[in-house]
């Protein structure tokens, strides 16, 4: 055999090995040392994924029906990383718990399905993996099947997931009818520069719908909020991993989407308001995990908007960054009490929750020139065509909010105040350098060409963001103003959007939701069952 043969054999082994590892864990779940095994398998999986990622940087790897491009490889590294840490977390969480093996099996099952999805190039396999992810996750979401609210949420999710799968199958069928090929990469390569045919347009719309359903966009978001009825690591897995699949789908089918304005506008029309409303609703939550769930809903909306705007590299960056953020936030949800302490301490020491107007103005004066300079530099040296300005707006809002708090700190002297400004500027510069660096690197690595720039789309998203900023500030600034208070209460009610879905679900698929189980809980302790 030549060196090349060896290399391709190793690649194949690596690809199939990645799928074999979770399978091993599933098989060994009942074994006494299953948890240590799972942790080692997770670590090995991460190493393997990293190696494949390095290899895939040059050219996509392939072995039979499997294929690993840059997007898939990056996501595989992310999933392996999270999978490994969740194995570790679960090992402690379920110490001595008779439910441990069941959890381990479910977790490894989801990881297996997600890996298969990322590796699959054959569209039938892709679809099967897609269904498998949903079904295996369903088991975990119903980890405590006797909890009525868990059942209601799982039923809702089940209905939505089945619709999404139907639409995905339809999209695949439509693409096949046009290209005659069932290979994902071949299908995308076949899309020429010309106009899409109507079945292709329809397929893109179907894919957009699938993404909207999977990413729990309003008004079909209820299940995502209500599934915090499962153990914490399941929530982390869902909110940092599986929920992203809508975005993954759009990234994989990007060549199609970037030529389908109808699908793009569908995404923009649903996801932009969805993101903004969910972000506002997030700030009216009372419990830690539900707040995080609404945050996911909002962030997913933004990711879809970025895809629709053709900002695929940003969507990928967002996906990765958000996964890290959300996984940590969920796993550390028990630290809420200490976070509250910090907030009280901060307020007592003269750093108000809401800075004053002059701090906001100061922050704007600090951030705007920085962003403008960066935008000019980027346009000069890197971008050729005009692109969307939405990322700058997002960055600006975040930086100004942070800087306003930074500048609102009490300072003992004039020099201390100068030091505050300097340190704020330095931190922002550093943060921006990392962000722009990553974004540029991803854009270079992604094999996707951007669609034409649409000013209307930019204006649509931009105005939603402006509304967001104004409403968010007003709610904090005038909490007692009657109209705003009404808005605040309505936001807390989730704008009463989910109730229809609950009622419909119960009608379509009746389930007994007896609020109190007839036998008191302690007769069959939950921990034991």
């Amino acid at each position, binding site marked *: 055999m030549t060196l090349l043969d060896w290399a391709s054999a190793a690649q194949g082994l690596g690809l199939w090995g990645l799928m074999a590892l979770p399978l091993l864990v599933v098989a060994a779940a009942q074994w006494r040392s299953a948890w240590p095994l799972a942790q080692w398998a997770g670590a090995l999986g991460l190493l393997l994924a990293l190696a494949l990622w390095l290899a895939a940087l040059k050219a996509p790897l392939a072995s039979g029906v499997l294929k690993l491009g840059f997007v898939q490889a990056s996501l595989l590294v992310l999933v392996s990383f999270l999978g490994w840490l969740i194995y570790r977390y679960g090992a402690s969480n379920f110490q001595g718990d008779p439910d441990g093996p069941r959890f381990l099996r479910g977790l490894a099952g989801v990881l297996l399905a997600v890996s298969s999805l990322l590796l699959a190039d054959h569209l039938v396999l892709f679809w099967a993996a897609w269904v498998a992810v949903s079904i295996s996750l369903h088991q975990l979401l119903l980890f405590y099947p006797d909890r009525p609210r868990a059942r209601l949420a799982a039923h809702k999710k089940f209905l939505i997931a089945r619709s999404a799968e139907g639409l995905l199958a339809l999209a695949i069928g439509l693409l096949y009818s046009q290209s005659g090929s069932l290979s994902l990469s071949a299908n995308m390569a076949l899309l020429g520069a010309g106009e899409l045919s109507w079945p292709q347009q329809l397929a893109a719309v179907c894919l957009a719908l699938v993404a909207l359903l999977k990413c729990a966009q309003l008004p079909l978001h209820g299940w995502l909020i209500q599934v915090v009825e499962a153990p*914490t690591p399941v929530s982390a897995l869902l909110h940092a991993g599986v929920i992203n699949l809508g975005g993954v789908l759009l990234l994989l089918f990007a060549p199609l989407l970037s030529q389908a304005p109808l699908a793009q506008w569908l995404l923009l029309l649903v996801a932009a308001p969805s993101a903004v409303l969910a972000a506002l609703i997030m700030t009216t939550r009372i419990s830690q995990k539900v707040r995080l769930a609404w945050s996911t809903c909002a962030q997913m909306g933004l990711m879809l908007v970025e895809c629709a705007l053709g900002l695929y590299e940003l969507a990928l960056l967002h996906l990765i960054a958000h996964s890290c953020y959300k996984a940590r936030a969920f796993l550390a949800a028990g630290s809420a009490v200490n976070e509250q302490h910090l907030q009280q301490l901060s307020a007592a020491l003269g750093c108000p929750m809401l800075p004053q107007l002059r701090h906001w103005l100061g922050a704007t004066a600090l951030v705007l020139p920085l962003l403008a300079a960066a935008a000019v530099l980027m346009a000069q040296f890197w971008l050729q065509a005009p692109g969307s300005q939405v990322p700058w707006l997002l960055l600006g809002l975040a930086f100004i909010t942070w800087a306003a708090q930074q500048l609102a700190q009490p300072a003992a002297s004039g020099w201390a105040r100068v030091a505050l400004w300097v340190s704020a500027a330095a931190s922002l510069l550093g943060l921006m350098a990392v962000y722009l660096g990553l974004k540029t690197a991803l854009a270079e690595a992604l094999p996707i060409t951007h669609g034409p720039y649409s000013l209307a789309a930019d204006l649509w998203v931009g105005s939603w963001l402006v509304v967001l900023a104004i409403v968010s500030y007003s709610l904090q600034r005038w909490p007692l103003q009657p109209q705003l208070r009404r808005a605040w209460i309505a936001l807390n009610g989730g704008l009463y959007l989910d109730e229809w879905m609950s009622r419909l679900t119960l009608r379509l698929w009746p389930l007994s939701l007896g*609020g109190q189980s007839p036998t008191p809980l302690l007769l069959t302790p939950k921990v034991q069952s």
Partner: protein
Amino acid sequence: MSPSLAHTPSELAPSPALQAACEACARIAPVWPLDKSVAVNPWWHWRERPMAEVAAQLGVLGSVRMLMPRDYYRALWPQVISPLALRLAAEECALPLSETALLAALDHKEHWPKWKNLCDWLDEQPEQANKMPWQAEITQQISQSCGLYFSYPEHQAGPLAAPGRFYNFWREMIGQDAGLAILMAAPKLQRFFRRLPHSPADVIDAVYHQLQALTGIDTGAFSAYCQALLLDINGWAAVFARAQEDHPGQAAAGEGLSLSCVGDLLAARLAWEWALLDVIAEDPLKHSLRTRFVDQFSRLPDWQASLQDTLKPLWVWQRALELSLQADFARQLTAPAPQQTPAAPTLQAVFCIDVRSEPMRRALESVAPQIQTLGFAGFFGLPMDYQPYASGPKRPQLPALLKPSLSARPLLAQGQERKRLAPLLSLHRQTHTGQQAAATFGWVEAKGIFDGLRLLAQSFGRGHLANPLSRCDGVTGWQLWRDGAPLSDAAIAELLATVLRHMGLTEGFAPRVLLVAHGSSTANNPLAASLDCGACGGQSGEVNVRVLAYYLNRPTVRTALAARGIRIPDTCRFIACLHNTTTDDLSWFGSEGDVEPEAWHSWLKLAAERARALRAGAFALSATSPLGQQRAFAARSRDWAQLRPERGLANNAAFIVAPRAATVHLNLAGRAFLHDYDWPRDKDFATLELIMTAPMVVTQWINLQYYASTTDNRHYGSGNKLLHNVVGGNLGVFEGNGGDLRIGLPLQSLHDGQQWRHQPVRLSVYLAAPRAAIADIVARHPMLADLINQDWLYVLQWDEASHTIARYYRGQWLPQPTLTAASSAPKEAPCMA
């Protein structure tokens, strides 16, 4: 029937309905926020009635369980519960049943009469099967309103605990809620709620009058109905009960009697029932439902009597379990103690009375014969709060029932405060930015990648957020304040003299006196405070011992103390120590530069090793070497996914008030609180009175909290920690998405996955003091008499000289029966699931 009032409420005198409602509200025991979480006896306000009677009443009204399931007792028979104990228990409970009959009673299918609220009746209707259940939705709606009310005080225009305020907020919310009518398929619901009266008292009166028109109920039955409704939202009711303590004046203001803020919650819940009466009135088919609902009122007394009868055999079993345990303790306490040669100690260590101190004290005493240990309430008698930062918040460091009169502030090195705070506040700004609606998108996008690194670090036990108020590093000294002025040395000496007298440490000071506080160390644990020192208001007692040691070492204070008759030798030094109950480390704070290695340093290390070795078995640690065990426990305390970092006070069963010399040879298996007390030195029994009215009540609260969380985790426990979801930062936790707020201990604190780790028994208090003194103190404190005579607690007199134990019950001294046939010593965990 519309909510427009048929009856104008009587403005002059409190109506009977209002009185009945207030009575129900007054039964609710408070719960403290998570960061100040202390154990509470959930039945504290029921104490003037016999426990069995309360069990029957709450059992009917809310299916509350105050006894373990039958299988539990059967599994303990006949090893732990001996036949003799069972017979004695049956005699004592006046239930003339044979052993076989009692055993058979464990197999009976019990008939449990259940009161049903109107929503429960509606939910039983067949057509309700495809709809949201009313009960769940009502709980959810009220619970969410409560959470929103307490989580965002800036959206409320006044103090939260003011009566009437919550009710009106709730009314505003539900009047606006367009979703309820859709969800429940009851289109007229919203209109009903919009027309609700503005005063909670009016709602109570209106519902009462409507029920009276239907069935002619009396106020007693109405009060029971109110209790049943409050049991539906038990967790939040406790939060309101705590909140009203901040506004005691307002509850008593106005004419005679007015509602507290628990009444607001009750009014909201009653308004829901009223709405359902309305729903029923519209549907003629459901009129029979209403009849059946109101029929319950007349049956209530019979049901309670019948349930009390049903439960009688179980109470015999419970009492038999306690008798068996008491016999074990009695055997240990009355056995002749081995001859001791009292040597002058070179090291004295004062520990908290906490049950976790007992194994540690044994371990320390086993290291060297010249070590003496003492037990004293863990706040060390300092009624203070702690203000770690000059303008920052204050934190109470004393039992929750007391109000702090002093404030402790650290003297920090120049710039220390800033150095400590800067990274914390910077972290907070970042978190806060990520949570702002407008900033969250860009911030997560730009900053989220760094969270990946933090995720990795935290997975390996690094970078966990600790309680920022608990840091004591870099402190050069302390200052106590009272009413905004620093305390003089004379005043401090006065305070310390009292502390030392109650501690029983006024002479015979060893060269080194360790003041050992305790605290836990856990990561990512919202219920961390429940593992800390209950006597310090759910905090680590570190600050208290540091302050105490600081002042006791000050020459000026010592001079002032000498003037009050307490002479501390110059060679004596007080040293503040901390017992980490999670890792069993004993650390000391070498303030004022004494770093010379001394013999006791190695003693503490050795004691820690021995204590860990004893505990390693219970946690199935594989490490056997001292270093391995130390590392394993340390890793456990830093593991953010660890749901059972330590056992806390599980399996507590007894409180022994006696000189340590009398118990020093005993292995009490971490089941006893130990308080040092030497009655001949307590002239007017003032110390005994203090112990019986303060630490004894605290231990009783702890004991019944563990008891209640074990027998009825649904009402008095916080369920499965895997599902915990922190509400309002520190209000409490939900189990999962929502439902009622959960109070009490999680299952993971009581159960290890295989078996119960807490054996629910009522506390047995052993007092080594004269009978007359005990009886006199009980006679002067009705609260104590209630606890003892209504079966909430056992008080036993332990006569060390004559080796006898007698129980004080309903004014009589009953000799404690000895069970000769049973097992020997109380085991580590003689309980089975």
